[in-house]
């Protein structure tokens, strides 16, 4: 498991670096696939099948295809390139290093063992004998809890104790879908052919 984690993590990092280094947009898109696909692989390793598949479907299968489609429709020359000036590289590198420092200091500041115990105490240790779905628990049963949570049921939280009475993901889910609908209607409105209106 650990070696697979190393492979995927390395691929994700190297892909991300290659995105930054390469100048052709199509190659960037390819390296972005490598990077995002490896992140999906990390999700699969963490038994989060649903999140991994969503990552593949939305980012790799959807967003990147649209990106390349956009390049193909708009490019004037054969291969579109982005040239970065040294100043831009300097500024971007500086910001990147600052961000890395922030993330690193945050992560190293957390006592993982304590927080792991806290999480286990709050959510309960998963019971290996318990069979909820078709699969064993060992094989990533994240789908059913996710489905419950979207419906507003949180079986992993103790609602009676009054600590966390979150109603699940129903509200954010609905807000996101309404938001998408608004965007869709707006896009259709902007893109439709303008009809000339004769003013009498």
């Amino acid at each position, binding site marked *: *498991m*650990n*070696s697979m984690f190393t492979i995927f993590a390395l691929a994700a990092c190297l892909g991300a670096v290659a995105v930054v280094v390469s100048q*052709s947009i*199509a*190659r960037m898109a*390819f390296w972005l*696939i490598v990077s995002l*696909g490896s992140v999906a692989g990390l999700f699969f390793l963490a038994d989060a*099948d*649903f999140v*991994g*598949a*969503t990552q*593949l*479907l939305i980012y*790799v*299968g*959807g967003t*990147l*295809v*649209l990106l*390349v*489609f956009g*390049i*193909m*429709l708009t490019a004037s020359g*054969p*291969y579109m390139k982005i040239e970065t000036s040294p100043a831009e590289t300097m500024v971007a590198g500086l910001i990147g290093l600052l961000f890395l420092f922030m993330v690193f200091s945050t992560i190293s500041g957390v006592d993982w063992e304590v927080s792991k115990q806290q999480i286990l105490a709050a959510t*309960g240790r998963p*019971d290996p004998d*318990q*069979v*909820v*779905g*078709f*699969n*064993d628990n*060992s*094989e*990533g*049963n*994240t*789908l*059913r809890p996710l*489905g*419950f949570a979207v*419906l507003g*049921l949180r*079986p*992993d939280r*103790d609602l009676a104790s009054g600590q966390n009475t979150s109603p699940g993901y129903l509200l954010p889910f609905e807000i996101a879908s309404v938001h998408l609908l608004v965007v869709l209607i707006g896009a259709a409105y902007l893109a439709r052919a303008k009809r000339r209106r004769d003013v009498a």
Partner: protein
Amino acid sequence: MSITLAANSIAEALDGFTVPIVGWEIPTGIALSIAAIIHAVLLFHVFAVCPAAFIWLERKGSARIQDRLGPTRVGGRFGWLQSLADGIKLIQKEDLCPPVADAFLFKTAPYVVCLSSFAAFTFLPFSHGWVAVSADCGLFVMLAVLSLEVFGIIMAGYSSGSKWSLFGGMREAAQMVSYEIPLAICALIPVVAAGSLNLGEIGDMQGGHFGNWFMFHDPFTFVAFFVFFIVATASCKRAPFDLAEAESELVGGFHTEYSGMRWSYFFMGEYASMFAVCGVASILFLGGWHTGILGLDGALEGLRAEGAASAGFSIYGYLANVIGAVVFASKASALVFVQIWVRWTLPRLRIDQVMITCLKYLVPISCFLFLGAVVWPLVLVLTTDESTLWPEPLGARVAVGMASETEVKSAPVPVELPDWSIHEPAAEVSAPDVERESLTVGLNNVEVRQ
């Protein structure tokens, strides 16, 4: 025993096993890797044999349908040598890369196509429990992985440095982005009827009489099967939707500049994903590995149950699974044959017609079918007080092997509306009782999880 034949059971067998002569003990990590390699190699053979068989079938079919004389005469007995000769020819060819092409992308594109359709086989169950990865959202993962294939084709089209390839790639992108919507919606319709995204579970639910197949579950799923099949044909870019490689307009479309093995990788990917998509169609709608004949299926289920009851390896359970795999493969191959038949019979559409077919017809139709399939069980229960159209007892919701051990805990998903649409194994329980029972089971489940 784990429900998946998968890596787990092989890994368990290997874990701690001592190699006879050398005397090493196999550690867990290596046992897991060996198990994974065994699965990958097995699946790779399916992936490699599919194209060979289907290209042979395509040749023969096209020859019979269009009076082409060649394929009916050459290539050994029944022409089986032809695919082999093709393979040898393709390996010998020079691996060309045009000077104007983006060499790196040009060379990697075929692998992207091949890998994504190969990876889809990981989630495809071939028989009860015969699946490499039995993911809880297997169908979702599989569709996600299959959708990556487009990217390889777009990359090939873009990086070839040829206008024909670019047009082919662009058409492919436009076609894929629009056809994925009805594909996903149509795949959801049997999922709604089943209440599960696990392909193995969906397949297992359709045992017994062929009325249990989700195709015959209600009128909406019946139509949905045909819509799904059309969309699946389009998503494999098969004629009449093969605009990305329309040879009458675009020379060869996205693969104009390719030759030799790289060219053939595209076609290996295409034929393999035809089989994968048809396999999904036969699991979702056509009962997967079940024969659809009540007596025969009952006997096979009995064998499986016997296999599940015995602790170790059972020849009966294995035999039943082999028969199941044969049934599954023949269903999927029959669907592939229909795709071939359609390809050599219907003329190619124009690109605007392809887009109109999808956006103006298939998307609304599939949305309507989805709505209908959701409402259907409610209407049926309210009007006739029956949960299904068929008088026959329906297939068990949970696999036979699992049902005996974990009867209570593995009962239907609690929150899902009471099991109206779902097959109830217990015939003597009346509908309201079933409803109350499944709700209480749901509450139990919630409590257990706390």
